[in-house]
């Protein structure tokens, strides 16, 4: 709760640190000039002429009513813009979290089980290598290879420009999701992989794993024992990775022109769209908090020791 409150305040403060207000954006360099009266009117329109504490009160008041204000950039209600973008972001980031968790865990366990072998090293090095490439670079290369050269996937956007319905629409959405999702999945893969690998490694050294073997279980049974407990740190890594991936999504969305929260944040930064920026940050912070919360929920399910006595 304290964290939420802190996040809200920070959200409010952050955009206001910037040189240049929304009015400066609204009147781009190309345009002529704006009179003092016009400025005043603009400021008044968005409530930016009030003192900062009053703005804060207004903002908080709006928050309690679920009113996030109106975008300075295009005059639309922030809430509807966020709602629209959030869906795509969740699809992209959520999909990447799930995929990278699944693939990363599977690979990590696989490597740990073959610790020290060539397969282990090969997968370790290749995952680290992919992780080492910045997300936008991976995105560019995927774009280059799969869209430009091979022409397998569309280059940009989330939905097709042409009107298609039903299953075709879903296919189109999936095709457009494919590359950004792959990029983001690759980005998130390594952290899960590394954690999964070392978690299983240390579990394999635990006595209960030995015991499982000693009591006659076959390798599959033994592995299941260890993996169950190794999932614990993996779960934490996955949920913590959420906010990292949200950040990475900003760049990836830009590369693929994907209409998610990341690009929205970026655009809002550039346009000093305070209401939008506040809202985006709030949503991102809430996502991170929710991820933590989910982790706290999942944890006791994985580890009985943490369940309330």
């Amino acid at each position, binding site marked *: 709760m304290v964290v939420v409150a802190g996040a809200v305040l920070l959200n409010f403060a952050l955009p206001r640190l910037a040189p240049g207000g929304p009015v400066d954006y609204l009147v781009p360099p190309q345009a002529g000039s704006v009179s003092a009266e016009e400025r005043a009117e603009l400021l008044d329109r968005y409530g930016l002429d009030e003192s900062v504490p009053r703005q804060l009160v207004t903002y908080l008041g709006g928050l309690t009513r679920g009113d996030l204000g109106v975008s300075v950039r295009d005059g639309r209600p922030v809430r509807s813009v966020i709602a629209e973008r959030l869906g795509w972001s969740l699809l992209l980031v959520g999909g990447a979290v799930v995929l990278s968790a699944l693939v990363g865990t599977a690979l990590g366990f696989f490597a740990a089980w073959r610790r020290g072998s060539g397969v282990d090293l090969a997968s370790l090095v290749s995952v680290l290598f992919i992780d080492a490439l910045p997300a936008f670079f991976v995105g560019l290369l995927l774009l280059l290879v799969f869209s430009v050269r091979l022409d397998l996937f569309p280059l940009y956007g989330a939905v097709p420009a042409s009107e298609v319905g039903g299953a075709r629409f879903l296919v189109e959405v999936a095709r457009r999701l494919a590359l950004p999702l792959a990029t983001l999945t690759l980005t998130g893969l390594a952290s899960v992989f590394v954690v999964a690998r070392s978690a299983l490694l240390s579990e394999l050294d635990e006595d209960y794993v030995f015991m499982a073997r000693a009591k*006659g279980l076959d390798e599959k049974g033994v592995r299941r024992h260890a993996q*169950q407990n190794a999932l614990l740190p993996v779960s934490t890594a996955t949920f913590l990775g959420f906010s990292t991936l949200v950040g990475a999504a900003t760049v990836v969305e830009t590369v693929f022109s994907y209409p998610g929260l990341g690009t929205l944040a970026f655009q809002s930064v550039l346009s000093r769209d305070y209401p939008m920026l506040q809202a985006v940050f709030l949503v991102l912070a809430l996502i991170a908090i929710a991820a933590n919360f989910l982790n706290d929920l999942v944890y006791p399910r994985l580890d009985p020791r943490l369940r309330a006595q």
Partner: protein
Amino acid sequence: MTTPAVLLPEPVEPAAGSRVSRPARILGMVGLALLALVVGGALGASVIAEHPPERSVGSPFLSPSGEHWLGTDDIGRDLFAQLLHGARVSVSVGLGAAVLALLVGTVVALLAGYRGGWWDVVLMRLVDLALTLPLLVLVLVLTAFLGRSLPVITLLIAGVLWARPARLLRSQVLKVRELGHVAAAEAMGASSTRVALTHVLPRLVPLMSSQLVRAATVAVVVQAGIAFLGLGDPDRVSWGTMLFFANSSNAVLTEAWKWWVLPPGFALGALVLGLALVSYCVEEWAEPRLARNAGRRGRRRPRPTTEAEPQTEGTTLEVRHLSVRFEGGGRPVEAVRDVDLVVRRGRTMGLAGESGSGKSTLSLALVGLVPDPGRVVEGEVMFGGRDLRRIGRTSVARVRGREVALVPQSAMNALNPARTIHRQVAEAAELTCPAAEARARTGELLERVGIPAGRHHDYPHQFSGGMRQRVLIAMALVNDPRLVIADEPVTGLDVVNQVTIMELLGGLVRELDLDLLIISHELPLLARWVDDLAIMYAGEVIERGPVDQLIGDPRHPYTKLLLSSFPDLYGPRSRLGAVPGEPPDLSRLPAGCSFAPRCPCVGPECTASRPVLVELGAGRAAACFCAGDERVADLFVDPVAVAEGNPP
């Protein structure tokens, strides 16, 4: 600190200087090489590149040539020069931000973790807050707002990076606080500053270094990311800005991507990969157990080629010439050497020995569970008329738990914390009978070992050590095995629990008509519960025989001295006897008798050749040149002399 896995035999620790496994060393070297390449490029940029990075030196969009190794960019600047000079930005931002972030993180961690109290509450809220905001987006916003020169960006990145190391380091501080030497320093009255700086901080170094590398990695990527988005430092050519201009000049659509997009991208990759590999190496160095080889035994062991002699009548288990060798990084360790051991039908066998004597390894070898890098190199394990070493891994697995059951040491950790005890026992039972029956048997047996029905579906952490040991006993007995091997079954329990568990085990063994092999270092305890006893020293059985005779009239000097070092509850309050010298280093055993360096009655023959186990009649045997000697019976070593460092 985590509890060491006590089940594993002790002497496996890799030789000094090789805390890091070979693959990790190789990866680390590769990482260092990559880093050296990048840093070298950064340092030597002005020398290596013949063109300045920030001046147009040719036509735009030139393809690579001898003059411009990577061609030129959209306004005719030399890309190779930019690549080299760009390294400076990445390296300095990465290093600068990481060092700063770590500095802040460490201070916060020490304040929060060691000072505690309000410091902890306030600082950790702050950390939580910092962690909820997506890092890249935050830096993006701040860069757009606060400026984008390198120092500012470095500061900003550090400003959002400190929280994660702070959190990790704090929990490490909390762990380190519990370490013995920290408590020792506190107990000695050291000031908290002294404790924090000399005792806590050095223990954070491994985590700090891996976090430093991690932070540098993130800093490099974040810096490149914001530069790629067009928010890079205007004054300096960096890899991110190269990619920004490449992308906005549509380099991916032309052939230019090969020399404009790939080099900076892969350079970033090389730097980050280098950091990651070094970090991997550092982490393994800090947590050596990561370096150990996996529990999975992929290699086939050599099988004995000659036909084994049939098992002797009336024995449950007959071990012949068994040797186990560990071949880690250093010199090979012979943990078990040429051991003969017999468990007779109806007689409980005891195996005594101190740490490193090979008794646990021996027990693991019996059931085919010697952990890597150990291997049974010789010998036969005759059980049920066949040699367990010949029948193959899968068959041994079938024998395990079904015919030979193991009650392992350290009941605290031998149960999976995430599964109920009932499930864990039933799982074993299901190996031999259908699920429903297995559940029924499990319930029955758990109650038999003294766990009330209401607690069968509790988790291991809800039980005390003694109770867990009971669960392990139930687990061992659930499949009605013929032989139970109990490895230190009561170590770590207090004396009241010891008696209860031993009596329970003894009772069950009689009731179910099993044979029992107990392994322990507590000689008096063993003596009370077994019929036959074998004493191990440095991987060898040095004396064996019926327990009363062996205790009453030890023939090996070691046995005699060891016996004298146990205090007697009601006997006279005489001095305890000492065994001079230090326990043997299994990787450097002397040529002759391995006890010779500590033996008070050592003779020239002892250092020259190795004594073998000699039958002394009545089932007794000892491996000593003076086994029948008078001197042994009167042996006593005064600890005072040993304490001074002057063994007789």
